[in-house]
């Protein structure tokens, strides 16, 4: 019985939302209420996850475990950012400027670093997976789109070449469509399995 209650709740809430989405004008009020609850619970779940993270790092500091200095940095940064946001307001321009002063350079540098790491990873792909239909087409495609991205061929303004470029640029859309349909079918199936109680990501 204890196991059945979460399955029942997941199934009923899922069915209610599906029914409310189908009978839109009549059940719009109910849908809004349920979605509001979901937003609140998702926010509290995120806060609980953050609290768990902070507790784990606090334990690390108290027990002076290896690498506790990183935990000090994390908790210190969290407290400064959180207290600042709660006292000054999350829309305060000065507060946002300080947050951006740390986030923007760190994130931009990480993205820049990703460019270097990706170049190395792309080369490693051929070493690890060898020559296959996937790796060869990936390599050729990357090379072709890198050249096309430079815009030199388009700048020549040769009509026949422009037609070829048009076809080349349309080619990835075929794979993209296939991948999107595959992912869509997978997500649809998983959603149905959750609503029917066959899949229980919230625990047994």
């Amino acid at each position, binding site marked *: 019985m204890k196991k059945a209650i979460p399955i029942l*709740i*997941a199934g*009923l*809430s899922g069915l209610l*939302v599906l029914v409310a989405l189908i009978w839109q004008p009549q059940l719009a009020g109910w849908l809004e*209420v349920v979605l509001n*609850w*979901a937003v*609140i*619970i998702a926010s*509290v*779940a995120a*806060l*609980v996850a*953050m*609290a*768990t993270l902070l507790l784990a790092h606090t334990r690390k500091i108290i027990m002076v475990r290896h690498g506790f200095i*990183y935990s000090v940095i*994390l908790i*210190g*940064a*969290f*407290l*400064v950012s959180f207290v*600042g946001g*709660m006292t000054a307001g*999350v829309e305060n321009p000065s507060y946002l400027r*300080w*947050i951006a*002063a740390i986030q*923007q*350079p*760190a*994130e*931009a*540098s990480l*993205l820049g*670093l990703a*460019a270097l790491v*990706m*170049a190395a990873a792309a080369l490693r792909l051929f070493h690890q997976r060898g020559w296959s239909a*996937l*790796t060869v*087409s990936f*390599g*050729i*495609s990357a090379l072709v*789109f890198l050249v096309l991205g430079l815009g030199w061929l388009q700048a020549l303004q040769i009509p026949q070449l422009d037609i070829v470029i048009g076809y080349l640029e349309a080619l*990835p859309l075929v794979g993209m*469509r*296939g991948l*999107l*349909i*595959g992912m*869509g079918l997978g997500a*649809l199936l998983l*959603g*149905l399995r959750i*609503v029917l109680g066959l899949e229980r990501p*919230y625990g047994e």
Partner: protein
Amino acid sequence: MNALDVIIGLIGFALTLMVFSYLLGYNFFFRAALYLLVGISSGYIAAVLITKVILPLLIAPIQAHNGQFSPLTVVPLLLCLLLVLMLFPRTVSAGKLPLAFLVGVMAALTIAGVSRGTLAPQLLSIVNRFSPSLVQTDGEPAWGQILEAVFILLGVVAVLFTFHHRTHLKGDTEARSGLVEGLSSVGQVFIGITFGMLFVGFYTTALTALIAQLGTIKDFILSLITG
């Protein structure tokens, strides 16, 4: 350039160097930058969630009823309290109920969103290529359009077959049928082409960010030198 600009510029400069120190190996400075970013971001997100969601959607309705609970306010409050109990090892299982509710709602939204927003438009865009107005011009078949439509249909089918892993017993070993194997190889080519294009797109973005960040540092140093 005032003192605040200099301090913010110095923070950005230091963080950039700390992140790029990863090129020398996974070191203290890189890890410190990551932990700092996680701490600042999570603190900001926590403040936003409390001030923009919890206070207006959960606490304000209770205050509006002068502290009296109505069913519409008590249900989310109870579910939230059950979630908070997950912080204590003995009451972790109490969080299953709110999580089950959340998962159910998300699953339903996924079903509706994916079927209306992804599957229907993608399938229709393939089917619509076979519409009589496109595959005919002046009553004559437009072979170019027909070939293109068939090519796209076969490409999509081949990509889907790449993820078909059902095997049959062939002698002593299990293997995919010849047709599936062939289609899967064609599908792999299309997936490779798509990944190649996506790789270049992401690589170009990352490279642009790298150049922009290096440009910002150069400008900051020049402004410090020139005053």
